[in-house]
């Protein structure tokens, strides 16, 4: 009896020890700022064969962003107390939820210069993109059989276009220049009488390049072609105005602007009205998630006011790295870019080994979609980046909550790791000796 008590007490203390320390680790994001060597810390977690002493610095804001605590505060009442379905018309719970949805809708509309009647809530930018591309073309399929888009669009837009091609539509994938910007003359030349949609994303998720939206809008108005844009990375980061850009459809995403995942919106113009065929039946205006919608709106509203911190930080990162390393190439236009997205290639260093060494910094090579495979990303290939440089590209994503210390530490770790790998690299040695690598005949095997 006594031993049983002792055993359970022991089990409890052991459990408490491990769970509380893991909880502490979960909530602390600043621990990687210290330089404690991981081998001395026996509480280090081992994951995927790597030992890391603390949670890495998060510099992957283009993949997703943390939820702003203010958004969470706005959301919680709608989970716990005011949890009615906005479509329930018969009681207070439904009425107050409906009110919240309408408030959210008007907040988003204000952010992009639209009317609340033109906003539809979806499950995310992916669904919005699908509805825009496939829905528009299928609605107008009798007269319009052609779509114009770019080679650097998000995977969901490209896959929707591929789906349309299989159904017999034609798609033109416009190339981009070395700076990632689409050529306006080529765009103008590719529009045909049966073009039903032009789709160009506002800010690219991998390289951060901002496309000339007003000029593209003008061309589309000239030819009277609907203009769709994926503005998931642009909302709250650059000024967005549906009238200045002349867009008919705009996809928006919640979790890129410090909101929850699983929520997005689609702007659909009413004058002139753009029609789409529903991709999901049973109410494709999915508005059951009113609490998330209202939170989304608040995060959007705050996004407008809180851009200031990021531009300085992007510069800081780039200058910090450039000060200590040579052979650093910025992928994409340096002038027309969103400052919080920095995609860098380091010459003579291989990407996978760099990423393995940067385990204390959470960054992405290419985009989250492509980071699973080791193929160089299609966006970098479209820019015309050499294969070996494409392999070494790292995307640093800076956001509202990134501190200057985090950036400095990331710069330090990156420089350290790149230096170490360059020391080990025969290519770097050859370049130092003055040999031109491009002239060498490599022995393939």
């Amino acid at each position, binding site marked *: 009896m006594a031993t049983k008590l002792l055993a359970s007490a022991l089990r409890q203390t052991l459990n408490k020890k491990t769970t509380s320390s893991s909880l502490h680790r979960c909530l602390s994001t600043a621990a990687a700022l210290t330089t404690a060597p991981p081998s001395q810390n026996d509480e280090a977690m081992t994951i995927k064969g790597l030992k890391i002493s603390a949670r890495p610095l998060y510099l992957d804001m283009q993949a997703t962003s943390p939820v702003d605590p203010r958004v969470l505060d706005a959301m919680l009442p709608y989970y716990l107390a005011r949890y009615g379905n906005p479509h329930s018309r018969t009681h207070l719970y439904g009425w107050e939820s409906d009110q919240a949805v309408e408030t959210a809708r008007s907040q988003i509309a204000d952010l992009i210069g639209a009317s609340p009647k033109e906003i539809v809530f979806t499950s995310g930018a992916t669904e919005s993109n699908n509805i825009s591309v496939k829905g528009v073309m299928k609605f107008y399929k009798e007269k319009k059989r052609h779509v114009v888009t770019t080679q650097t669009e998000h995977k969901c837009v490209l896959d929707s276009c591929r789906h349309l091609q299989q159904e017999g539509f034609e798609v033109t994938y416009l190339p981009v220049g070395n700076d990632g910007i689409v050529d306006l003359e080529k765009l103008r030349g590719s529009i045909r009488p049966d073009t039903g949609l032009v789709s160009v994303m506002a800010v690219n998720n991998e390289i951060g390049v901002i496309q000339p939206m007003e000029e593209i809008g003008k061309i589309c108005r000239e030819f009277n072609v609907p203009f769709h844009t994926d503005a998931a990375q642009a909302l709250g980061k650059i000024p967005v105005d549906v009238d200045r850009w002349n867009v008919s459809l705009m996809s928006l995403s919640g979790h890129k602007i410090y909101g929850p995942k699983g929520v997005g919106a689609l702007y659909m113009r009413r004058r002139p009205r753009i029609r789409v065929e529903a991709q999901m039946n049973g109410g494709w205006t999915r508005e059951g998630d009113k609490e998330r919608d209202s939170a989304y709106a608040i995060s959007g509203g705050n996004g407008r006011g809180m851009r200031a911190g990021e531009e300085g930080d992007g510069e800081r990162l780039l200058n910090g790295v450039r000060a200590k390393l040579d052979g650093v190439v910025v992928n994409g236009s340096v002038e027309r870019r969103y400052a919080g997205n920095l995609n860098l290639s380091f010459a003579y260093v*291989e990407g996978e080994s760099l990423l393995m060494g940067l385990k204390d910094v959470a960054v992405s090579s290419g985009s989250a979609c492509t980071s699973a495979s080791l193929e160089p990303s299609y966006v970098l290939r479209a820019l015309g980046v050499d294969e070996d440089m494409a392999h070494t590209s790292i995307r640093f994503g800076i956001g509202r909550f990134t501190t200057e210390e985090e950036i400095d530490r990331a710069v330090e770790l990156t420089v350290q790791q790149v230096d170490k790998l360059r020391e080990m690299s025969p290519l770097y040695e050859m370049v130092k000796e003055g040999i031109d690598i491009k002239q060498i005949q490599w022995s393939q095997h």
Partner: protein
Amino acid sequence: MLRQLASKRLITQRIQILPRFYHEKVIDHFNNPRNVGSFDKNDPAVGTGLVGAPACGDVMKLQIKVDDTTGEIIDARFKTFGCGSAIASSSVATEWVKGKQMEEVMTIKNT
């Protein structure tokens, strides 16, 4: 009995079966590579091998210093442009060849 229970608890919580990720030894060789560097190319006792291509993602340069009289490899250095496993395997290769005869090292294979 209690101690066994306790230690079993701890062990089951620490061990994770991770498919398809690098073995600890590979990571160790990646973080602390042995014998990185170069010898003087023009030294007659030094042999240099360079293989691979940047487009393939792997370039490896291996140099060995051979003792003229005994034919034994007294030292080795490597430099690699490549992923974690490429660096680790080059590092391991330099450790294996040190102190061996030239004919002996020809038998080192991938398998």
